[in-house]
């Protein structure tokens, strides 16, 4: 399925592990277009997500960064129709392009926002799986991990017998570095890291094409965080799913995502390959955010962060919402909202007046694109022993 104007928005895919059609990687699998979400109605409505366009390529990891309250979770939950009231979707479409059938016959695209409950149920978990920050809330506290796998598989894979379901559940736990014995454990008997691994195993149970990861490791310590993210990326390389990876930690995304989108006050403001965004940001907010993470090496020097604080969505400044904090704000920025648009000669999009018309961007925001993106290698996954977390 090809949509005009989409192909140049997705950068070429990374090679996938054998067994997957490499030519498909990078094709859009989830396309969010013009998504608008409010909390509440009428004059009191808070525009938590405004006019967002975002495309997730097959087999790619798309990072969604932004500060607390910028609308990251709202965007993701609305896209898969898991938004809770008083959230209301007020516009847009979310296209899901299923994997082509094995005979090469293209499968039909589905608009998740127009889909009925029945259709959604068929897609959720089996095609699009979700891992949230707190596995404790997502897991049922009164059943064992095994029972929860069993229920999931019995519902979605009615053909599987009880024994096969148990085997499959055990295999899944091994995939994320746990022993099958853990099927007998209750969630509260496991550490936070282990529960998060179990959640990931459950999300993988039906071989989904898309994983939505909303702060999957934010509550965990750095060592556990890195173990889990390494595993996830290894699984992505082997299984070929695409991931929307949400976190406020931009420095983490630079390491783990292929592309990064930056959100501010409900709008997507910049989207670029991870290395480009890190080495040569085009948006003043991204530039500022990158200077909020003190480096681990080299000389220490005073850093200033970003002046002011993130705006209240109920009382947004007119024009570009970032203008009160932007050192390069121009008169136009105070009046007109910049739209996310592709930048000429570059695989990225930015919503900033500095890159439009006759305006000239400052040298800091004109650095050349880095030549090559880092090679990504799949870490070797050792499933021989259970990790302690």
């Amino acid at each position, binding site marked *: 399925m090809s949509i005009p104007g989409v192909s140049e928005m997705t950068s070429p895919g990374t090679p996938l592990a054998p067994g997957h059609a490499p030519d498909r990687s990078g094709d859009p699998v989830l396309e969010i277009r013009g998504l608008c979400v409010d909390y509440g109605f009428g004059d009191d409505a808070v525009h938590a997500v405004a006019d967002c366009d975002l495309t997730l390529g097959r087999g790619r990891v798309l990072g969604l960064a932004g*500060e*607390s309250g910028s609308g990251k979770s709202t965007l993701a939950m609305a896209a898969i129709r898991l938004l809770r009231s008083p959230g209301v979707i007020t516009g847009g479409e979310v296209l899901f392009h299923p994997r082509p059938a094995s005979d090469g016959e293209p499968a039909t695209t589905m608009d998740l926002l127009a889909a009925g409950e029945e259709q959604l149920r068929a897609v959720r978990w089996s095609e699009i799986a979700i891992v949230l920050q707190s596995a404790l809330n997502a897991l049922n506290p009164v059943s064992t991990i095994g029972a929860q796998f069993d229920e999931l598989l019995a519902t979605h894979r009615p053909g599987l017998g009880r024994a096969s379901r148990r085997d499959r559940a055990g295999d899944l736990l091994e995939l994320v570095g746990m022993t099958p014995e853990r099927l007998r454990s209750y969630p509260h008997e496991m*550490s936070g*890291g282990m529960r998060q691994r179990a959640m990931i195993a459950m999300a993988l149970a039906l071989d989904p094409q898309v994983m939505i990861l909303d702060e999957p490791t934010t509550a965990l*310590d*750095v*060592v*556990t*965080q*890195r*173990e889990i993210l*390494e595993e996830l990326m290894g699984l992505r390389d082997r299984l070929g799913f695409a991931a929307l990876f949400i976190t*406020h*930690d*931009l*420095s*983490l995304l*630079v*390491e783990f995502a292929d592309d990064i989108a930056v959100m501010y006050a409900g709008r997507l403001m910049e989207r670029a390959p991870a290395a480009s965004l*890190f080495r040569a940001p085009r948006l003043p907010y991204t530039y*500022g*955010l990158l200077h*909020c*993470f*003190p*480096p*681990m*090496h080299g*000389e*220490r*020097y*005073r*850093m*200033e*962060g*970003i002046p002011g*604080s*993130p705006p209240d969505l109920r009382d947004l400044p007119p024009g570009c919402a970032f203008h009160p904090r932007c050192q390069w704000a121009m008169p136009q920025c105070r009046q007109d909202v910049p739209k996310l648009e592709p930048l000429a000669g570059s695989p990225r999009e930015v919503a900033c007046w500095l890159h439009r018309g006759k305006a000239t961007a400052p040298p800091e925001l004109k650095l050349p694109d880095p030549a090559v993106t*880092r090679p*990504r*290698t799949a*870490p070797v996954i050792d499933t021989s022993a259970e*990790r*302690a*977390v």
Partner: protein
Amino acid sequence: MNTLALVPNVGAETPVLEGRGLTKSYWVKRNTGLLARRSRLHAVDDISVQLMAGAVTAVVGESGSGKTTVARLLARIVKPDTGDVLLDGQPVAAARSRKFAAQVQMVFQDPFASLNPVHRVRHHLARPLQIHHIADGDVDEAVLQLLHRVALDPPVNFADKFPYELSGGQRQRVAIARALAVRPRVLLADEPVSMLDVSIRLGVLNLLADLRDRERLAILYVTHDIASARYLADTIVVMYAGQLVEAAPSVSLTDSPAHPYTQLLLSAAPDPERRERPQLAARGAPPSLLAPPPGCRFHPRCPHVMEICKRMAPPTVTVSTGHAAACWLHVDSTNGVVDGVGVTPTTSPSPQREAEVQRPP
């Protein structure tokens, strides 16, 4: 039992606040009903730290490693099982007296919870001034001064606000101003920025740096974010499972970590400058504090574990100027420590502290 005296700050100067051999355990209930029994949880084991005037000491470590307990022990909010707290070299009473409180103040993680929502900023700052009889007469002026010290300018705009009218960063500044009201010489800040938005964290860290430099406050900065510790602190101490494992000037610690656990923490920390994904130096999780492993508590995870590590707690060894680590790897005849005997090193950590470290200006 090995004494971990990881104190790279030792010098001619007397520390403003010092903890010596602080140990704290809690009795916790395991299981419920008939099987209920109480076991000893070793939260903090034999920790010594020194806070110098005009310096920030960071405590880093994973969740549950005992960082908050150390801060609370130093604040005299929690009573140690053994060990002493010294103010200007003099032992202080076990209970937190008003006199001690006027010298040693805490700042907490959650600026939302730490300010009563029904009172205006003015009230929050005036109260400690009145209780401690500071600025008698001109409390209003003193409140404005405090707001100015934490860069809430112009102060008159902030004095009459309620906490909910302030951003998270502004609220944390008010909490710091309140701690400063009694003119303390020591600030114990427990994860003061971890609940704040990324873009405003540096502002609060810079404020702490300014208080250190302008007013020569001694500051303890508790964090799990080693990059921010490197940014702000003069000295970093690393905790693992209730013990100190390494202490050094910040840059020395992050550039050349000597303890395998510190190496693990650094290899796991997010670092966008990395060319390749790091190989994690070790896996697994910290041990249960109910039954910590014998010998070195890190030995079940350590890639360099030796026989002796499983039997005996490692001594503290000076690995370079002002840089100490508790690890058998660094023990050899030149340290004056005989393998297997476990005596503490003869060379005590050097007085030199900041000569080679350049602070953020």
